[in-house]
């Protein structure tokens, strides 16, 4: 654990109840290419920003493409309003996320969590600059809710359908690859502008591996601290399988228990083999 205090003010890891529990789906909303699922988890603790859950549909999990899914899927918590509600932002990229995106009120999720280590508070009074790419915007929503100080949110999407995800972040600056919304180009263009204007910042980023790597390289060049929420293939989410390792300067670490948020300084690269789609 690092010296800086966590973004939640308490701990950057909230412990999970032991075992799978059932959470009824209470709402489903579509924002362009993304689905937001809300569920009721009254007995679970409130997670920290950056933590995740292992999710499965409580019924009919399996028999999709390639007769999958079999294992639960890792999903960052999008928001955790008071009253034991959890919200997730999901992009359908395969059989597991496809099944999750089908669910609605009347269905239920099986979940384990909250898992992993979340974001920490900015060090030395720096201002927080949040940069998200695609479905990686999810953990930045709860982070901007939980950070007390004013934050800047920069979001990158590939096209207009995905840019609808920005509806979840009033006041965010948007970039799209095809120019359908906001700045045309990568979100790192916006990040470079922000850091030009005020380099006394700490960057919080989550997104596809190439975007995270661009953020990491940019921040390294400018000496700006960054916390990156990475992704890797996970089977268990609680340190049991050793399947989710990512290379760091001190060897492999299990992303599910030592991450998913890692200090950029620990990484030689954010390009994780097998991650992304």
């Amino acid at each position: 654990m690092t010296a800086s205090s966590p973004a939640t003010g308490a701990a950057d890891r909230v412990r999970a109840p032991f075992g799978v529990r059932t959470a009824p789906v209470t709402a489903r909303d579509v924002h362009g290419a993304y689905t937001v699922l809300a569920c009721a988890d009254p007995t679970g603790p409130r997670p920290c920003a950056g933590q995740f859950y292992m999710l499965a549909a409580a019924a009919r999990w399996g028999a999709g493409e390639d007769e999958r899914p079999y294992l639960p899927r890792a999903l960052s918590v999008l928001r955790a309003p008071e009253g034991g509600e959890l919200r997730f932002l999901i992009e359908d990229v395969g059989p597991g996320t496809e099944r999750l995106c089908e669910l609605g009120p009347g269905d239920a999720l099986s979940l384990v969590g909250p898992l992993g280590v979340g974001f920490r508070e900015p060090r030395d009074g720096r201002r927080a600059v949040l940069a998200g790419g695609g479905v990686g915007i999810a953990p930045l929503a709860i982070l901007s809710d939980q950070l007390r100080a004013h934050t800047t949110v920069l979001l990158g999407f590939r096209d207009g359908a995905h840019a609808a995800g920005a509806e979840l972040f009033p006041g965010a600056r948007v970039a799209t690859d095809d120019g359908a919304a906001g700045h045309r180009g990568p979100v790192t263009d916006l990040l470079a502008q922000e850091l030009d204007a005020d380099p006394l910042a700490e960057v919080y980023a989550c997104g596809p591996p190439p975007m995270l790597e661009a953020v990491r390289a940019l921040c390294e060049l400018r000496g700006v601290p960054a916390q990156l929420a990475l992704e890797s293939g996970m089977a268990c989410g609680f340190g049991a399988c050793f399947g989710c390792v990512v290379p760091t300067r001190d060897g492999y670490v299990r992303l599910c228990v030592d991450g998913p948020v890692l200090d950029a300084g620990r990484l030689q690269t954010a390009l994780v083999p097998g991650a992304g789609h």
Partner: protein
Amino acid sequence: MTAASRPARGDRGDGAGDRVAGAGDRGYPHGGGRDGASPPPADASPAHAAVELCGIRLRHPIVNASGTFDAIAARRVFGDELVTRFPFSAFVSKTVTLAPRQGNAPPRLWELPAGLINSIGLPNRGLDGYIEHDLPELARLPVPLIVNVMGFHRDEVVRLVSELSARDEVAALELNVSCPNVETGLVMGADPGETARLLDAVRPLTDKPLIVKLTPNASDVPAVALAAQRAGADAVSLINTLRGMALHPATGRPWLGGRTGGVSGPSVRAIALAQVDAVRAAVDIPIVAMGGVSSGRHALDLIRAGATLVAVGTESFRDPAAGERIAAELAAEQARVAPPRGRRDAG
């Protein structure tokens, strides 16, 4: 030497771990129940059938499969609830090797229909790191500790066994023989002669129960089991993972960093049952059976085929508390059926 001549171990199993939830409280789709987050009252399930393996008394027949549950990491994630509701009646460590290992390059996982291919590559701190860092923490678990070891050379296994068997915290040793002997190039556990020579070297070094974990990637698994028994093994465990492979959908190159990996989960369950049945016909020593167990019914099948203990592996990835549910389901199944022929005392 017979297993029965050893003092009973595992007295720590009577402690905090006694509270076991009923089958109905887990929300997993293929699990037991549908509802509810709160654990049921402690006595909601039928009494567990206590068992004995080579003189080690255990509260119920469900243990974890090596490498599929890290009790130290799980303690960080779930806190004390992991200990008060410890799902297994003994804890089996991930394979310990003499030197530390980083493990294979990622990606390490490929999902199958009802299963998984892993190419983890046995990352671990090595013997000294295990003794210094892991052993003190694992000794605080409320159940006996079984340490799984592997060497690439007979001398490595000799050191692992002699050092670990000197530790009071260790109740038994499991020998993972699914790796090539660097001297002969033969996979130790794929050849009865190699297995016998390995046991000849390590059997005299310890009074603790020695469990030989057989590889299913052998042409005659019962012959290897028999060689292990004749050379003094106290028990055998099976099955380890079956060799498998997946190609990257876009590039057509091997997906897994280790090129091939081991298949586990429900897709290997029928193979496990057949191998346990065949090994039971060949040996008299107890069997620890595993492979695709995800319910009490599957555990009962393996016990009926002759197993004393059943290990849960991949199912724990879907529910960390799966072992607790399966133990409760098994107790309910056993209460319904006549005593299985396979449950027998050690030796």
